[in-house]
């Protein structure tokens, strides 16, 4: 350092403002078609090297598709910039997306699935060439059977909702096999169970009965008593529900349904608070499902691919989707000879990458580690609740007994300031964090749902709570400022009205060009 340079700053360095001065990347990236220039190419393709085939005119493409024409660096740079305008778990304190169990996805597990010995396996290879991956499927099934206490588990479903549908399809097949398919035409669920329970049951042909919460925040058992009967096919229920409240009478719910010949199906999409503490089997459930991308750590990938697991008691095993993975003591093999199976729910065996990642995650934790995951997720949630409820204007309906998440309310703050929960979430994005309200309908007024999982530190939770406290204070002092957010995001406040107007909506670039640029 030259002696002629004059100092312009002082040590010690003063503390920055208490909250992070976040600004999201703002690259002003054009839509990719606007980056196109005729004649450019992003990648080369092998030439045929054998005589060309002339297609009949009836099936020959006439005009080339109007895809972008770009060099490789420019394709890469565009997408890297878009990635920077996205907040993954790797870059934010992802506790704001309640019900979704955002947790750390260990990097080492990604290496296993990019290995050619997974990535370049074809699912119809001879069994002797895929013994390793079949063993992973088999061991994973055994571990999830132990975690649920149920007899067998299918890893075929593509996601949690697909697993719910798979379970409904098995329930339908089970009742049909007993000659009760026509008679049992109702499925019972609860308002705080994931909406896919209701939606999948309806799609499978069932009338849906939804139980509302009672004064304690539990699904109303009297309403269940009134609902069950000879028409009951199944109860589809989450516990703890999306409120984070555990229903202590769950075994009674199951008994009531069993008493009329119905099946009980446990939505364990998120089992994060109860791993190794209580299981589907102990409460008497006949079926359950897990989401590997929630409890079992596989990354959310901007909304999939995910992976679901459907667990069943012994009497439902014949209905599992096929093929199943079997082991004869020496080799692993596929059993497709399952006459009562509901059939395929997807191509081949499952979302293998996520089965591999989840397997490696469980192997890194073991029984003690899984219990520590659950206990820490619950501790983190209760700690965060303790912090959030110190914020004036925030409340948690039905008291403080919560496991892994809480559905909170800004009702008080809204009444005082006119600022909605959605507005708070948008402003929170200015500080670099996610925030989510709740599924519809908003039974809890001005809802927000936080689920801190085991991945976040005490410091992370303190920071998240401080951000919400700060935004709530802003809402009181300058509500219009909060409603005008975001300010530090990639883009500014969006006017969504065109999205519901068929004359204006533009679900693709070509629709946008046709409606707005021509």
């Amino acid at each position, binding site marked *: 350092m030259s002696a002629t340079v004059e100092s312009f700053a002082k040590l010690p360095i003063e503390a920055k403002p208490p909250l992070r001065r976040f600004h999201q990347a703002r690259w002003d990236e054009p839509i990719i078609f606007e980056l196109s220039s005729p004649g450019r190419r992003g990648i080369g393709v*092998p030439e045929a090297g054998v005589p060309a085939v002339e297609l009949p005119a009836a099936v020959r493409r006439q005009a080339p598709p109007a*895809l972008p024409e770009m060099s490789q660096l420019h394709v890469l740079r565009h997408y890297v910039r878009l990635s920077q305008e*996205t907040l993954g778990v790797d870059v934010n304190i992802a506790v704001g997306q309640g019900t979704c169990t955002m947790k*750390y996805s260990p990097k080492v597990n990604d*290496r296993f699935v990019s290995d050619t010995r997974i990535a370049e396996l074809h699912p119809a290879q001879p069994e002797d060439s895929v013994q390793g991956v079949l063993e992973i499927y088999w061991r994973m099934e055994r571990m999830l059977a132990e975690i649920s206490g149920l007899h067998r588990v299918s890893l075929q479903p593509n996601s949690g909702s697909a697993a719910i549908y798979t379970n409904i399809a098995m329930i339908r097949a089970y009742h049909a096999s007993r000659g009760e398919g026509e008679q049992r035409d109702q499925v019972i669920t609860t308002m705080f169970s994931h909406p896919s329970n209701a939606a999948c049951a309806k799609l499978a042909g069932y009338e849906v009965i939804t139980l509302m919460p009672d004064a304690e925040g539990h699904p109303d058992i009297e309403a269940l008593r009134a609902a069950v009967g000879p028409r009951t096919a199944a109860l589809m229920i989450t516990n703890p529900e999306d409120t984070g409240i555990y229903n202590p009478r769950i075994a009674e719910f199951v008994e009531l349904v069993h008493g009329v010949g119905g099946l009980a199906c446990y939505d364990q999409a998120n089992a994060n608070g109860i791993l190794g503490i209580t299981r589907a089997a102990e409460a008497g459930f006949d079926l359950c499902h897990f989401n590997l991308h929630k409890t079992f750590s596989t990354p*959310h*990938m901007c909304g999939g691919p995910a992976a679901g697991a459907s667990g069943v008691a012994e009497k439902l095993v014949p209905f599992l989707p096929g093929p199943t993975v079997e082991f004869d003591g020496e080799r692993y093999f596929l059993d497709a000879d399952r006459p009562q199976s509901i059939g395929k729910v997807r191509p081949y065996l499952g979302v293998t990458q996520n089965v591999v990642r989840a397997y490696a995650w469980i192997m890194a934790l073991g029984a003690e580690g899984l219990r520590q995951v659950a206990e820490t997720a619950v501790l*983190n949630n209760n700690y965060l609740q303790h912090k959030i409820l110190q914020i004036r204007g925030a409340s948690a309906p039905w008291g403080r007994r919560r496991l892994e998440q809480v559905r909170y309310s800004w009702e008080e703050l809204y009444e005082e300031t006119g600022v909605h929960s959605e507005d708070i979430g948008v402003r929170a994005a200015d500080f670099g964090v996610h925030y989510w309200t709740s599924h519809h309908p908003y039974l809890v007024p001005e809802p927000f749902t936080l689920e801190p999982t085991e991945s976040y530190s005490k410091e992370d939770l303190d920071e998240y709570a401080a951000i919400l406290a700060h935004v709530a204070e802003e809402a009181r002092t300058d509500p219009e400022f909060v409603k005008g957010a975001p300010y530090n995001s990639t883009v500014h406040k969006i006017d969504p009205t065109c999205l519901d107007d068929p004359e204006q909506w533009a679900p693709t670039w070509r629709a946008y060009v046709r409606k707005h640029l021509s």
Partner: protein
Amino acid sequence: MTHPYIPNAEPAVRAEMLAAIGVESVEDFYADIPAALRLNRPLDLPAPITSEHELVRHMGALLGRNTDTTEALSFLGGGCYPHHVPAVCDEVNSRGEFLTAYAGEPYEDHGRFQAIFEYVSMMAELLEMDVVNVPTYDGFQASGTALRMAARYTGRRTVLVTAAIGADKLSKLHDFLAPDIEITMIPVTETGEAAAFTVDDTVAAVYLEYPNAYGVVETRMAEIAELAHARGALLVVSADPIALGVLAPPATLGADIVCGDIQSLGMHQSYGGGHAGYIATRDEPRLVAEFPSRLFGIAPTAVPGEYGFGDVFYDRTSFALREEGKEWVGTAASLWGITAGVYLALMGPEGMRELGETVLARTRYAMDELGAVPGVRVLHPEGVHFREFAVEVGDADALLTALRAHDIFAGVRLDAGTLLVCVTERHSKDDIDTLVRAVREVRG
């Protein structure tokens, strides 16, 4: 050791947090779980492998018992295809921001919205259709939903489905369309195409595949579209988008709903884990209303010149309406959509055409060469084929086993005497000649 994945398992932090909340132990939080429902023993699981190095070794030992398609010469297709995956596709989809993002909101995840919007927009150009969904799970689901959309749109309950469909996909359709939609099969002729059939007023949709399960390209699609439309039915076509650099987009031949799997567009085979489904329609509000999936659209922001994004017509989804929504929506396969977008941007119109021409030519070459081997008969020699063809080989299992000994996975077994052979741009002429020589040898 405090587990590396669980920061607050550290005892002092844990104690500090419990003290802040004012409870004695974590057990207090579980007071609502009755004793009878508690698991009073540790889970019976394998001992944990807490060092990363040992985990890598454990997994390496398992993976070492696989032989992948870079080690063996594979002609397996049947819905999962070995196309070349550009390095940029892997680079983009392994970016931590995309890989670990939730299906977030338009502000903090603007980049995700734009990347998916661009994917659907590039698909729309390839398909020449104005509406394409945020990916559903896979091509099976896309076909099931497309047929249900047609049934809801027409108010009818029968679908006519080509018999040139994979057995597994048909199994999925039977399960997914139950209990209210009836499937009637359209037979296949000796050319591998759909036979003549009639359509009546109960038919919601005619369903074809393009190319179909035998790799055959339906050449009478325009005629079939007219037949369907004359009776008020829709034409639903499952098309592999990788073929559309050379094949006419189904919409230009009269298809109303086009659907399929995008695994070919930049996803590895991954033992069946690379699938994602698309569904496309024209921009007709009544048809758009039948999509269960999310649709992303451009919206203006408070700053002129800035693109924002949001959900188009959200109030048709199960997120908005529970069981009153269309089917259901949830986490599906977004990252594969982003990846397919990267693929299409790299390829551009010329790359897609060149790839299509290479695949067409090599498929024909493989058919001709293999068909010339004594005892091997190409099932539909006159049909236009893309990427796959069926061959009768006598004893399929014996042939597969014999070729396995040559480190060749010769094809997907369709039945005791028939194989489905897949050829992509990854198979050089030498690879095809190697297969043909090996078949001659084991047959000799």
